[in-house]
């Protein structure tokens, strides 16, 4: 497990422009997780190709905005890869206002659905995606769904409402 991580680190040293960090953690079950932060989105495809070379597999892609809850122009995308049991996470920080990132579909076929998902949730564009259509959300809803204030849910903090409790309190006296 740790062998593969070392191999990937070597490949990164060879093919990537410097300016990235690479940390490895090992937990008490001897399971290794590696955490890489890339300084620019151009390093993404060379990094992915190196991982594919050693037989890695893409797990999933997590996109998120840096300031939770408010519309933000700064995003980070975390790509999680499997190296025969070890998990390697590459986090790419997008610059303020940057919405384009190269698509991983040429290297990893299963990036397809993952990229369609973050395209609709966060309005980030995966350049070169073969089928950039909506995955789960209807076309009529504007993109960047997680950023927009969905009025009802936000008003009640996605939980039971005040008016609901008023009804309950009102009828308490009538309980048999």
């Amino acid at each position, binding site marked *: 497990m740790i062998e593969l991580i070392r191999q990937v680190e070597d490949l990164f040293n060879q093919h990537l422009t410097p300016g990235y960090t690479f940390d490895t953690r090992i937990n008490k*079950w001897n399971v290794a997780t590696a955490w890489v932060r890339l300084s620019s989105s151009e390093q993404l495809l060379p990094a992915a190709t190196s991982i594919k070379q050693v037989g890695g*597999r893409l797990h999933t892609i997590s996109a998120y905005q840096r300031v*939770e809850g408010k519309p933000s122009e700064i995003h980070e995308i975390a790509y999680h890869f499997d190296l025969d049991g070890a998990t390697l996470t590459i986090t790419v920080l997008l610059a303020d206002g940057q919405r384009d990132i190269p698509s991983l579909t040429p290297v990893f076929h*299963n990036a397809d659905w993952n990229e369609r998902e973050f395209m609709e949730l966060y309005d980030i564009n995966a350049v070169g995606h073969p089928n950039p259509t909506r995955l*789960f959300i209807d076309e009529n809803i504007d993109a960047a769904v997680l950023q927009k204030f969905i009025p009802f849910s936000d008003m009640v903090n996605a939980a039971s409402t005040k008016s609901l409790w008023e009804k309950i309190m009102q009828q308490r006296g009538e309980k048999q």
Partner: protein
Amino acid sequence: MTRYQMPVGPLHVALEEPMYFKLDLEGETIKGLHISAGHVHRGMEYLVMKRNFYQNITLTERICSLCSNSHPTTFCMALEEIGGIAVPPRGHYLRVIADEIKRVASNLFNVGIMAHIIGFTSLFMHVLETREIVQDIKETLYGNRMDLGANCIGGVKYNLNAESIAYLIKRLNEIAPAVEEIHRIYSTHSSILTRTRGVGVLPNAIALEYGLIGPVARASGVEYDVRAKTPYAIYPELDFATMTRPDGDVWSRAMVRLDEVKVAIDLIRQCLAQLPEGPVAVPGLPTIPAGEAVAKTEAPRGELIYYLRTNGSDMPERLKWRVPSYPNWDALPVMMQDNTVADVALIVNSIDPCISCTER
């Protein structure tokens, strides 16, 4: 031969959950498939960011009811890794017992539905009758037939005493021979073999290329089981083998699931034999500092991965989970190629889809 498109779903008698397929057909042979998803999208990734960690244990359990114990287990594992919390050994054993009981129930359900889809209703009833024993076990030990409510941060919140262990062993002794018999029926009965052998074939190369996991990949010869590759809880101390089959058709997937039911029953027995005394959870309330972690477990449908980022408060900054059914959908066009319309429901069921997991 005419070419035309036919919709299947979103509400269909043979599909458990809504999913909209548009099939490209030539006569009765499938030549292409388009999937239109989103009917069960509940926006759970948004909801979990609005709740604190304790509430999220309950919320993650309700992502799916068949894999319902794997979700809070993996979520708690990610929290425990960030917080540096060590779950006591008995807690780990109890988590494994809960997971394996869920696996038995989920896999029996899937092979039963397969019998239902091919029209073998009496076998379907028989398998589900065996599964009812597992449902009774869940209700007696945990208090609910589906949502076990077993996990808390730092361990489990249920315990097994001598009486419940005796009950569990008694019922396992009822299930084990029944599962053996079901395994024999599925291996040899001509109705099942004719309908499922050679149907929905997924070659090994495609399984690797598309990054598939779980029983679907293992039925195509990919030997990847999270319990062996990325051990967690007390799996390193248990003795089990990864079950694979070489052919990659619907029958192989059902057989892998039945093989895993037998392995799961054996694992539960091993756990009960080795169960140590001690606390079941870390006492008190945990402090979770800022950080990020990735946790993986083997849910009944395959590898479940959770990615958690915390910022020191008691609500997660970002919680993302990728369920095992997610990559499996993409393999459907390959599996359906050159099969007939009648096999659509059968192939879809063979990947054991969990649409509520996929779409959250």
